[in-house]
């Protein structure tokens, strides 16, 4: 019984999902209060677990509730509440509202389990439960675009799940254990003979998780699904699902690999550094050419995943605040992206278009939405005083700090026969501080991203609107975007509480 108390927040959401589906089948009824009630209870329960302060394990160590999982539980529950409140207009107008609510709850519940799971079997089951629910959600509008998005998401998702599993099989084969602690014990023994096999297994695992995080080269689904899926679902994917993906990567890396001290940490650092640079560059360059706001946000989310992956590389290179940087970034990104998506939802439903050019003159038709959307775009770019600016500074700073702390030494200079000493030294210096290079790429990318984010903002503010009628938005949606905007400004001006929470959560991994 005690085991079930430990996973109670996830259990509440999964049970509520069943109840909602049952009620929806048996006839019309009010579902929204049940859904929101379940989410609030789960959130409060998770907070209470966090306030208790002690770590709890359940099911033979397969589930572990600590400050880290509580941080993500609160983040995911809050994001789900915001998505449901912000999208209630659309959801309530659908015949499938029961399915939307039920699947969203199931997916969120499984995400909570995913952030708590400490065992390969648990990780796999939780990951697939969130994914399968999301596949259906992406196709739930049942029109040509939505069903195409659902099918593409499902095919890429199942291929990457199979790749992940193959990696798990080899981790299990090498270490003889499915628990992350067991794998950590094997890695800590540093078997030089198992190094290649271990890297192979972890590369497969990274490919599987890369799909969830939407980093290049496992990103191909993101733009299509973001564009084709209903905006409510897109916002859920871009915030909650991405956070859960990064959460499990951090946990597997810290607990399963022993963090930055592991003997293959450098390989991981380089892998994530390269993937981060690729994601940022590809995402931003592709976003430059987009005319559809949802597709633009899809590419932007790939680029942002690259930013967060810089933090993963910093963690692997031995940074002490890389993990909290990732958590802080995810927190600010949730507020920013939710604000942007709820604005897009409200506007697109009224103007009947997702094209950027149809956002022209939005500032005159709805100053409130246009203002908050602009604020969110500034935060996505990383312009002070918004939260996005601090998040980027924090994460890049951790990478620079790690590049100094790294014990990685280069012998490339010594191999350059005949080169002048200063060239050899320069090469060595650059190679040893390659994380700084990744940060340079990231900063250049911020400049690229400013172009398309601010172009969109300019269209909204300066261009002539096609018609001048004001857009009427219900109070609930206005409230959600106001809270998101408040979060963006608050985390930008007074980030200390969130940073403290992130550091506390990251410390629980050690």
């Amino acid at each position: 019984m005690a085991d079930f108390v430990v996973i109670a927040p996830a259990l509440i959401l999964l049970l509520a999902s069943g109840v909602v589906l049952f009620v929806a089948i048996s006839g019309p009824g009010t579902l929204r209060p049940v859904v929101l009630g379940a989410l609030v209870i789960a959130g409060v329960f998770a907070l209470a677990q966090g306030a208790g302060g002690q770590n709890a394990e359940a099911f033979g160590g397969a589930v572990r509730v600590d400050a880290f999982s509580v941080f993500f539980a609160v983040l995911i529950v809050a994001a789900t509440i915001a998505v449901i409140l912000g999208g209630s207009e659309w959801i309530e107008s659908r015949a499938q509202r029961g399915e939307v609510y039920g699947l969203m709850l199931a997916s969120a519940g499984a995400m909570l389990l995913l952030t708590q799971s400490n065992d390969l079997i648990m990780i796999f089951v939780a990951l697939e439960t969130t994914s399968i629910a999301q596949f259906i959600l992406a196709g739930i509008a049942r029109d040509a675009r939505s069903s195409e998005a659902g099918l593409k998401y499902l095919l890429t998702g199942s291929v990457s799940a199979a790749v992940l599993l193959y990696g798990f099989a080899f981790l299990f084969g090498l270490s003889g254990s499915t628990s992350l602690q067991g794998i950590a014990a094997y890695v800590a023994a540093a078997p030089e003979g198992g190094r290649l096999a271990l890297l192979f297994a972890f590369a497969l695992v990274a490919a599987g998780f890369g799909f969830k995080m939407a980093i290049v080269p496992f990103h191909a689904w993101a733009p299509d699904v973001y564009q084709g899926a209903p905006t409510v679902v897109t916002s859920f994917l871009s915030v909650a699902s991405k956070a859960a993906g990064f959460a499990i990567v951090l946990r597997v890396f810290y607990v399963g690999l022993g963090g930055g001290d592991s003997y293959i940490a450098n390989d991981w650092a380089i892998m994530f550094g390269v993937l981060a640079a690729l994601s940022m560059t590809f995402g931003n360059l592709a976003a430059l050419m987009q005319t559809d706001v949802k597709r633009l946000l899809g590419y932007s989310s790939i680029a942002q995943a690259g930013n967060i992956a810089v933090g993963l590389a910093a963690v692997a290179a031995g940074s002490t605040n890389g993990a909290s940087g990732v958590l802080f970034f995810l927190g600010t990104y949730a507020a920013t992206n939710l604000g942007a998506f709820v604005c897009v939802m409200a506007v697109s439903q009224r103007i009947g278009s997702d094209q950027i050019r149809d956002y022209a003159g939005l500032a005159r038709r709805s100053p409130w939405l246009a203002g908050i959307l602009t604020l969110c775009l500034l935060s996505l770019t990383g312009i002070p005083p918004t939260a996005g600016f601090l998040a980027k500074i924090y994460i890049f700073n951790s990478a620079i700090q790690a590049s100094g702390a790294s014990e990685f030494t280069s012998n490339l200079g010594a191999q350059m026969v005949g080169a002048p000493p200063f060239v050899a030294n320069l090469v060595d210096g650059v190679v040893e501080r390659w994380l700084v290079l990744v940060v340079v790429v990231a900063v250049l990318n911020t400049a690229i991203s400013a172009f398309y984010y601010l172009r969109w903002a300019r269209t909204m503010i300066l261009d002539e609107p096609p018609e001048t009628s004001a857009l009427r938005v219900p109070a609930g949606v206005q409230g959600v975007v106001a809270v998101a905007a408040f979060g963006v400004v608050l985390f930008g001006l007074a980030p200390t509480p969130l940073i403290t929470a992130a550091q506390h959560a990251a410390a629980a991994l050690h």
Partner: protein
Amino acid sequence: MTFEELKPFIVPGLPHYLALSGQVFAIGILIALSKRNAIAVLMGVELMLNATNLAFLAFTRFVPQAQGTPALAGHVFVVFILTVAAAEAAVALAMAVLVYRRRETVDLDRLNLLRW
């Protein structure tokens, strides 16, 4: 030759199972990446999952378990994989039927409303 001498050649051991599993996985991923029909891609995924199952079973049979690992952890994993794969296949086929009704094709090259 005695049986003991011939045993490595007759009785399959871990390398044999892993080689088979690797082949099946490679075939599966090639099918999944190269076929343009959604149903064929799903068949490739099934092959990949079965290759994984085979690897898990071989590892459980031949590799000594680490201290504290429940017995048959690999077998339990396989049962979960089978279950999840069935759930995934059910959703996938439903989705394929839905797409076919809307577009009269499940050819991934012709599902190009969402592009660039």
